[in-house]
């Protein structure tokens, strides 16, 4: 995991914490990953595992009243972001690092026209006139395949469907040709058919613009279809990282395996009695993040866990070809059938 020239984003030992009435929540607890230029990286995990907080940390959008980046380093093009001044950070946001959010219904401002919301980003970062920015907004709406884009510029978000709004978000996010696009559950709130269209669109635009994408999702199906490399997170920590084929071919962390068993599948035939195998859930609950976890966070729910797993932090095991897993019992897990 050495820093290489090909990486546009390098996150090291990121720790983001929130102050709550129950104490300090370690939402992200020592996460590291790299993003290569033009790459699509997936970050997967269930709700509350810290994947969205990781994204917000990169853009330094953690609300300062409640949370903070407690430790770690985030380097963008070699520049340290955790200590960058707020004004310089504002210059990066929406310009070189953009973000798309989960809720297209609430992420656009209801009282400003779509055209204004795209154009203001362009005016802010490209230093062009409003007229030129408006033309750019039109091009972007056209690029995300919104029909009748010229007219849509003057419409308000409530006049658009959910899928169209997410297209507008994408148009906005890509309007200044960012090097990195962070998409936080961009399709979760959409119908399945629209989901596929939006993902397809994102991939196509990535091909055109060379923007690297961090795709945050809980949906392994989305990950399999769209990403090149995957980081699996659990309880604020990275548990496994691998190229997407390796992860699906041979998942090595018990949690990753649990996630995969929990995917509903249509390709499994019903048996003679007409019953299909039940989906297997992961037993137990996500740990509370207010208490420091000395060993592996997944140990209480893990079928492979030993005494040691509960008390000693597990090592990062490199199994080759860019596949790493944070686990004491890799050999036993590998020997068992997934």
């Amino acid at each position, binding site marked *: 995991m050495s820093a290489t020239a090909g990486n546009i984003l390098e996150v090291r030992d990121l720790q983001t914490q929130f102050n709550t009435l129950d104490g300090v929540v370690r939402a992200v607890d020592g996460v590291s990953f790299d993003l290569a230029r033009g790459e699509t990286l997936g970050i997967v995990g269930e709700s509350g595992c810290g994947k969205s907080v990781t994204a917000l940390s990169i853009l330094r*959008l953690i609300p300062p009243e409640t949370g903070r980046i407690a430790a770690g380093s985030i380097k963008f093009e070699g520049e340290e972001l955790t200590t960058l001044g707020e004004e310089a950070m504002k210059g990066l946001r929406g310009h070189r690092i953009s973000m798309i959010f989960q809720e297209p219904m609430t992420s656009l*401002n209801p*009282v400003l026209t779509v055209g204004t919301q795209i154009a203001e980003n362009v005016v*802010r970062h490209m230093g062009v006139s409003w007229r030129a920015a408006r033309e750019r907004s039109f091009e972007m709406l056209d690029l995300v395949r919104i029909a009748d884009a010229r007219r849509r510029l003057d419409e308000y978000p409530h006049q658009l469907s959910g899928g169209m709004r997410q297209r507008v978000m994408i148009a906005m996010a890509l309007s200044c040709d960012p090097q990195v696009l962070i998409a936080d559950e961009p399709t979760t709130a959409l119908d399945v058919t629209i989901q596929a269209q939006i993902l397809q669109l994102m991939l196509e635009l990535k091909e055109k613009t060379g923007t690297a994408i961090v795709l945050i999702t809980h949906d392994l199906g989305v990950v399999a279809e769209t990403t090149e490399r995957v980081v699996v997170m659990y309880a604020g920590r990275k548990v496994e990282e691998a190229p997407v084929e390796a992860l699906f071919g041979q998942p090595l962390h018990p949690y990753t395996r649990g996630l995969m068993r929990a995917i509903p599948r249509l390709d499994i035939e019903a048996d003679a009695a007409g019953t299909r195998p039940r989906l297997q859930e992961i037993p137990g609950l996500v740990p509370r993040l207010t208490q420091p976890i000395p060993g592996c966070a997944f140990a209480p729910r893990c079928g492979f866990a030993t005494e040691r797993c509960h008390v000693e932090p597990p090592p990062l095991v490199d199994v080759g070809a860019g596949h790493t897993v944070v686990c004491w019992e890799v050999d036993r897990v590998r020997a068992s059938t997934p």
Partner: protein
Amino acid sequence: MTAYIVRRLFATLPVMAVVALFVFFLLRFAPGDPAAIIAGEDATAEAIAAVRAKLGLDRPMVEQFFVWILQLLQGDMGVSIFSNLAVTRLISQRLEPTVALTLSTLFVAVALAIPIGVVAAWKARKLVDRLVMGFAVLGFAMPVFVLAYILIYFFAVQWQLLPVQGYRPIAEGLWPFVECLILPSVALGVTYMALIARITRASMLEVLAQDYIRTANAKGLATDRVLLLHALKNAAVPIVTVIGIGIALLISGVVITETVFNIPGLGRLTVDAVLKRDYPVVQGLILVFAAAKVLVNLIIDISYAFLDPRIRY
């Protein structure tokens, strides 16, 4: 939009009709007899009856009502029982000071309240927020006449910066006009400023927690653009509503302020006319006040459609 405004204007007619009906009969059933007041304390019953006949007050009430309404529809509000001057003239003479005082008060209140509320919401729970909001509570709790006398004592009597009281029409020059309005506007405006600032803060806080504000920040927009365009425009509907309520309250508040600062406006005219049971003047004044409130309401309603495109008209 124009069709909507015209439709809304027509819709105000029934409201005004009900106000007219109510005003007329309420006044007639209130204790006190203008004829007895005009005739004087020692007047005989015949003398009072003669005055009453002269004023037309001996006619059946329903007949009096229709005579008044017919005149009203021709733009004639009748004649003051005491001064024999046309009510429309009395009112129009006194209109300028009241309108000037109301607008300047509103200006003082809004111009201070919105920045205060926005800053308080932006710096929520920090020192600035607590200071500013503490000041707002103080302003809200302070009765207008107390603040008025405090202001007069310091600014007019001690430091002699501004006139103690009185009113100068705008025709006499801008500075004399403004000079006389400063203290009354501040005295009257502080209460509304506090009210509007609190609503602005609350409304802004709610908006600042919305997803689209996070989006605006994720675009790296300047703080003032996020606050003043993205947030304030969304927070505007409750603020404008309260400003509208404020204008309605102001019209009543003006009565006290005009008395304290000796301003010859509609408030003073109202007090005098009510005390003397000058029916035509009181009726005319209440109609004018009602029309003003209806108009303010209409303007507020129309402004909603401008502020929030989701509101259909």
